[in-house]
């Protein structure tokens, strides 16, 4: 059976070019980047080259880039590191209600330590309101963190405008750019950012490596204590091969960025239109235009997401859902509920995320298969029957 991968927001396959670049750093160039000898030097110079590449892509200085183990670490680093280093100034943080768990869970942890967190509500498209943000700011606010684009519904936030407000108030501003880095242009000065998290495996790089951008002069506590790696801010022997792969992935992303965006938007809109036009009682979640080029998130009324995902998987199509039934907790996605979606529709969501290897035939195949699956599940659904009467 042919397999169609439409879950690029979860992870992407590593580009063969990335693997090729990484490979020598497992074997002949295996040195520890902290060692003085030639083995160490060649590893270190590869790490520094990758750092330059990432910095250039962000419009940052190389010394402002800290390599981490990925998006979750970068987010934890920011929240705990900024909170701790700035607690004499204040104890208040502001985030959006639709952040990734790698932001919300550290915030819950900080609340237990005595910090206060404001969760900015979003409108029906998932956008934060700038007036709400202004109202939430107090003289104790030390950090604002709003994700660049949401991983579930793909909504793109007004980061530049939020950053401007933060700058005027002299509050640190962070964005979780895991979903946009390498896919949309991201410039830390243009977007008024002090901190940014990103991860290699979302842009055809390896898993287990990411970065945190920290603007020069920002007070932040080191995340791991030990050796003096990463300017004493993140101890641990550097993941040299991973970092090299990350650098190569960023170079490749830079070469493709605008063209790929256009191609994906056209496929994305074909899929959205196809679902909404051909299957009754469906809705698009997220904003129609302020949306990641590769994100399709729809709710299908009267049926549940996990059963759709499983049926699609049986037909070779890989996608995901925000239904409770697909997670170990029994609540549906906090993101979909924050949009004001009733539970039934939140349980009935499907997310398709497209990528570099997605072809039009694959979208056509989904549009051929999905209506049949919906029909089958609706015929078994007691809600569908009730609603028909």
């Amino acid at each position, binding site marked *: 059976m042919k397999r169609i991968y439409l879950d690029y927001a979860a992870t992407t396959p590593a580009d063969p070019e990335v693997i090729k670049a990484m490979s020598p750093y497992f074997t002949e160039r295996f040195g520890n980047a902290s060692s003085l000898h030639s083995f160490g030097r060649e590893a270190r110079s590869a790490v520094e080259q990758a750092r330059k590449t990432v910095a250039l892509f962000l419009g940052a200085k190389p010394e402002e880039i800290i390599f981490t183990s990925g998006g979750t670490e970068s987010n934890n680093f920011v929240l705990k590191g900024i909170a701790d280093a700035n607690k004499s100034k204040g104890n208040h943080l502001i985030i959006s209600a639709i952040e990734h768990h790698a932001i919300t869970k550290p915030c819950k942890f900080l609340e237990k330590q005595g910090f206060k967190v404001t969760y900015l509500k979003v409108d029906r498209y998932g956008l934060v309101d700038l007036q709400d943000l202004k109202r939430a700011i107090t003289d104790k606010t030390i950090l604002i963190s709003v994700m660049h684009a949401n991983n579930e519904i793909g909504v793109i936030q007004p980061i530049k405008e939020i950053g401007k407000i933060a700058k005027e108030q002299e509050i640190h501003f962070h964005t979780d750019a895991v979903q946009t880095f390498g896919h949309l242009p991201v410039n830390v000065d243009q977007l008024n950012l002090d901190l940014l998290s990103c991860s290699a495996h979302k842009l055809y790089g390896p898993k287990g490596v990411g970065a945190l951008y920290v603007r020069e002069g920002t007070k932040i506590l080191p995340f791991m204590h030990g050796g003096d790696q990463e300017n004493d801010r993140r101890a641990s022997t550097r993941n040299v091969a991973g970092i090299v792969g990350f650098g190569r992935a960023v170079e490749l992303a830079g070469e493709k960025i605008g063209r790929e965006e256009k191609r994906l938007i056209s496929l994305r809109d074909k899929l959205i239109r196809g679902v909404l036009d051909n299957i009754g009682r469906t809705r698009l979640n997220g904003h129609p235009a302020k949306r990641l080029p590769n994100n399709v998130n729809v709710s299908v009324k*009267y*049926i*549940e*997401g*996990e*059963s759709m995902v*499983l049926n699609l998987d*049986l037909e070779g199509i890989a996608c995901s859902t925000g*239904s*409770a*039934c*697909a*997670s*170990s907790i*029994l609540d*549906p996605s906090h993101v979909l509920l924050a949009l004001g979606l009733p*539970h*039934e529709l939140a*349980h009935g969501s499907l997310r398709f995320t497209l990528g570099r290897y997605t072809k039009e035939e694959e979208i056509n195949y989904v549009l051929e298969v999905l209506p049949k699956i919906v029909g089958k599940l609706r*015929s*078994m*659904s*007691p*809600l569908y*029957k009730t609603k028909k009467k």
Partner: protein
Amino acid sequence: MQNYSEKVMEHFRNPRNAGEIKNPDGVGHVGSSVCGDVMELYIKVKDNVITDVKFKTFGCGAAIATSSMITELVKGKRVNEALKISNRAVAEALGGLPPAKMHCSVLAEEALKSAVEDYHKRSF
């Protein structure tokens, strides 16, 4: 997320007795769309034996598989015997369920109890 057993997937793929019974002798309705699972069980009873049973379910893979399995387990059984089928028995018959999905088997047991209750109410 733990993987489903082959038996769960088999029932999910080809659910037994999905649908509705016209003029049922008892209908059970449990769960809510808020929690993400709604089960309806229809039974036909003759001489205290469940002669036919059908289900309609809104829910995940496990919810559909447990619905399908309980219809197989109760069909042809005497009502009082059918009531002895526990949620564990449903889960076991499916080759086990991931811990987070055990509540689906509870729902199946409750749907049957609710259908039998409805049957008793109608016949007395």
